[in-house]
């Protein structure tokens, strides 16, 4: 968007949009719609860390290739912003990308017994919360991680729904594969599990969407009235039941009641007459459970559904939770001994030149890269859908969206929660400056030359505070302040 519109000029002249200095208006990456900020927030989360190998001390390799060390996530070294191996497919949208480095998950690092395991990392990566670990009541060999606050997406969903009421405050989707638990929390101690079957999601989201020409169906209206009465009845039952349970259990019943209210809202939302097109789903098993669903098909279908949901105005926030996959459809000939992605991640050092599995290096790398690229392919598909959707004033939905893509570790092989991989995409309604990377590693040279030296005072707390502010919040912190180096937003974002 290189058009300078009146609104933007006013923002610049009046200093209202402090994130929009004049300089930005002149060098080709000026943002339209600055005063409005982003309309929607999307979070793609995939499990197991990104593609990296480490040295024996646990440091990331610098990408130089020494000892087969690699970090396929980071941009290429140098002053110019060039995408790394995993991100190559995002090249058409490079002007809408902002890669952040040198940001740690301090909430995990400070609370986990050692640096971070999957459970602690998942519970903190989107919440920055205080976490309590308790045994599962019926199986003490299982642990339950409870947080004292919501994840970022849930908070934004609530706020955005207040500004722009929608049928679905948040659409939560899952591409199921190996994982240690959902990182999404709608509130303290309330985990969110995403829908994993596209057919189920499709029916839920588009049941009340018409093409704008159809007349109301009396039979459907009748069924809807009945359903609403039934949900009302369940809600009344829960309200009465809440008085019968202990104080400890009230939270469970309240959550149950809120879920019923959410279903009621979906039913009561009424018919949505939209000019959007419902996605076409083919070749999917409507009865498949999370362990049998064909993710090669369900993944892209979920992305298409989410794009359509935004186009139909059904929601402001979407999340996609992608498991750590080793998929035979990506590499059917890979040695079967590496039967899951998790093992592959942890074997990153075994395949170094000095290890006995050194001969497997290229196969390992290729497989890992395919897996990561497939996951990021879902992000790419989503960005393409947004970019192809005009949204007035010469903008596209991509211009008015903020997307974040991350995972629970930087280097999965060592469970590192330092230097987290953060990809922002979309121009956030002009609230951030894209087409670049920012490295908060205090030891990183200005020209982004490779380095293993690392020091930071920036954590996810600061990033999420910034994101809240981008969406108009006046927040000075996100999550628990206990574990942050500092409160406040990131600098340099705008």
């Amino acid at each position, binding site marked *: 968007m290189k058009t300078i519109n009146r609104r933007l000029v006013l923002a610049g002249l009046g200093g209202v949009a402090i994130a929009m200095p004049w300089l930005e208006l002149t060098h080709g990456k000026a943002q339209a719609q600055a005063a409005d900020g982003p309309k929607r927030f999307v979070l793609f989360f995939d499990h197991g860390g990104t593609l990296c190998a480490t040295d024996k001390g646990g440091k990331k390799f610098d990408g130089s290739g020494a000892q087969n060390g690699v970090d396929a996530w980071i941009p290429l070294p140098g002053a110019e912003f060039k995408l790394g191996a995993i991100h190559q497919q995002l090249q058409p949208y490079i002007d809408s990308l902002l890669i952040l480095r040198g940001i740690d998950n301090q909430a995990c690092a400070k609370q986990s017994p050692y640096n971070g395991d999957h459970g602690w990392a998942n519970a903190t990566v989107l919440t920055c919360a205080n976490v309590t670990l308790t045994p599962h009541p019926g199986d003490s060999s299982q642990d339950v991680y409870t947080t004292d606050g919501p994840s970022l997406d849930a908070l934004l969903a609530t706020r955005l729904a207040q500004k722009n009421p929608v049928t679905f405050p948040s659409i939560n989707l899952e591409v199921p594969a190996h994982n240690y638990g959902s990182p999404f929390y709608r509130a303290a101690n309330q985990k969110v599990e995403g829908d994993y079957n596209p057919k189920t999601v499709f029916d839920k989201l588009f049941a009340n969407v018409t093409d704008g020409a159809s007349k109301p169906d009396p039979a459907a209206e009748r069924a809807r009235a009945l359903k609403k009465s039934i949900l009302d*009845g369940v809600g009344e039952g829960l309200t009465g039941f809440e008085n019968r349970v202990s104080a400890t259990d009230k939270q469970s019943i309240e959550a149950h009641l809120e879920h019923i209210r959410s279903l009621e809202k979906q039913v009561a939302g009424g018919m949505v007459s939209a000019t959007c097109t419902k996605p076409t789903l083919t070749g999917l098993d409507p009865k498949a459970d999370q362990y049998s669903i064909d993710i090669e098909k369900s993944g892209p279908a979920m992305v298409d559904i989410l794009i359509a949901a935004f186009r139909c105005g059904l929601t402001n926030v979407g999340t996609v939770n992608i498991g750590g996959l080793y998929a035979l459809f990506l590499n059917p000939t890979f040695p079967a001994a590496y039967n899951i992605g998790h093992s592959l991640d942890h074997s990153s050092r075994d395949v170094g030149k000095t290890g006995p599995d050194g001969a497997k290096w290229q196969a390992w790398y290729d497989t890992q890269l395919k897996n990561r690229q497939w996951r990021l392919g879902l992000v790419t598909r989503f960005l393409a859908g947004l970019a192809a959707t005009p949204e007035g004033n010469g903008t596209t939905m991509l211009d008015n969206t903020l997307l974040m893509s991350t995972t629970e570790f930087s280097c999965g092989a060592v469970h590192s929660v330092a230097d987290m991989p953060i990809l922002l995409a979309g121009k956030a309604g002009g609230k951030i400056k894209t087409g670049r990377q920012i490295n908060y590693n205090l030891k990183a040279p200005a020209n982004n030359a490779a380095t293993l030296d690392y020091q930071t005072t920036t954590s996810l707390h600061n990033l999420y505070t910034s994101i809240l502010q981008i969406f108009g919040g006046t927040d000075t912190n996100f999550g628990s302040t206990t574990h942050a180096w500092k409160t406040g937003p990131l600098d340099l974002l705008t």
Partner: protein
Amino acid sequence: MRQFRNPRKVQLLPLATLLLAGCSGVIGAPGISGDNGQAGPNAGGLGAPGDPNGTGPASNLTCTGGKIPASPVALHRLSPEEYANTARDLLVAPMANPKLEPPTDNVITELEVASLNGAAHDLVALKAHRTFVPCDVNGPQDAACAAKFIDKFGAMAFRRPLDADEQTWLTGVYSKVSALTGVTPAITFGESIDAVAEVILQSPQLVYINEVGVVDASLPSDVRRLTGYERASRLSYLLWSTMPDEALRTAAGGGALDTPAGVRTQADRLLSDPRARQMVRRFASTWLGLDATTLHPAIETIGKNKTKFAYDTPGLRDAMRQETESLYEHAFFEKNGSFKALLTSTDAYVNGPLATLYGVKSGPTSADQYAWVTLDSAQRAGIFTRAGFLASEASADYQSPVHRGVFIMRNTLCQNLPPPPPNVDNTPPTPNGSTQLRSVRSLLDAKTAGGSCQSCHGMINPIGFTLENYDAMGAWQTQEKGAVDGAPYTVDVDAKATLKAADLAGPVQSGVELSSLLANSDDARTCVIQKWFEKALARTASDDDKCLMADLQSKLKANDDLKGLVIALASSDAALFIKEPAQ
């Protein structure tokens, strides 16, 4: 409820400490039963502690110093399996197959609620609930008839009679639905009944087990006796994974469950029913991790090398689960609940493919033909030498001593093992011409020899090594075959190890010997008690349960009877009484 976590087993107080504690509280005074504080037939029933026919505690409380070992209970929501069984029994609809999303946390998720909502809708479509309507369901709106339906169907669904508030709520639902305006055609009586049923089928009273008990003047002020209906639900969900049947409901309503003896009578009855066998089979599969989770595929789908194990078929995978479940069932019901039989038996229920895998010469020959056979006692002994466990805890190509060892440490000895440190140097040593490492064992030995690895792997590896004679499918092997850089090799299997985990110590030669040690291990017995305790009481053991756990341990050691263990748990004071939770 955060006791006994590291390690996760009960620490017993010195006996002297227990004996010093004096009796307190007034036991055996008149009590009340029934439901919601109503007096039951045994109201006024007496009985000193330990009197099985009184309404007081089942134990004599000597060990507990006079305290009733009751603990607070949390709300329990039915598992998907329990809900499906309940729906089938409630609706008398064997074809009903509702599928709820599995719980992933203590608090229900929207995904679960949505699946429950959909399941209730689908169940109502079967129209099976209409058999509870005592009038013509195709007739005109009939509030009186609807009220009778609500009382009858509701009591079945809620596992107890409805109280006045619940009657008001549900008759209110009927009234609102039957009077819905603005719809054409008008809502029929049958549809109104359907709507009420749909509410009931996803109501919290059905979905959650909420125990409040009754106040009994004979009990300490913070202890409550579970009502007969609550005890009935406990028994039936523990032993049948479903709602109480008519006999249990009758026993509850008549006060027969107010006494420990009455509870035990029903526990015996339930355990003699085929549904209890199914419960035991599911317990076995759950315990051994044969079901799919987000971290581990089900035994039916876990990946194996199709070239190396060309004989692998769906029929073989089915048999792996069938045999595992059948062995637990066999030990529990046909071998007098013998824990030792579970761990040492050579009896096996196999089909053709599994018989072939085990090398059984005269057994079934096809995948759909099953029979009991006897396995070679030099190769097989009990459940940890069977394909279900061995294939589940292995990689696609090779056996996994770590997975097998960790599983037994955690789930058979209940030892708390932390996850490996993420920054551990797990790079294997470089093989070379003179000391080339070949076998799984030698590679693992080298990999875990240094640093702090031995603090855990010193316990894990030897257990796993004793199972080296079983390959990734669970087949017997005396040699391990593989390839390095395309060059094939063969190495002899070494299953000898010196155990030093929990109370297992000393040299063993094989998985058969490991199984024998486990069968006689106090720690293994304590662990199996813990597993059944958590199933029976849906909570972890607390300090208040020390006496019960010690008693169960001594009885299991003396009687070797898991069935007796389950009955003892089901009729224990911990199952009969609850403590008011701290607010």
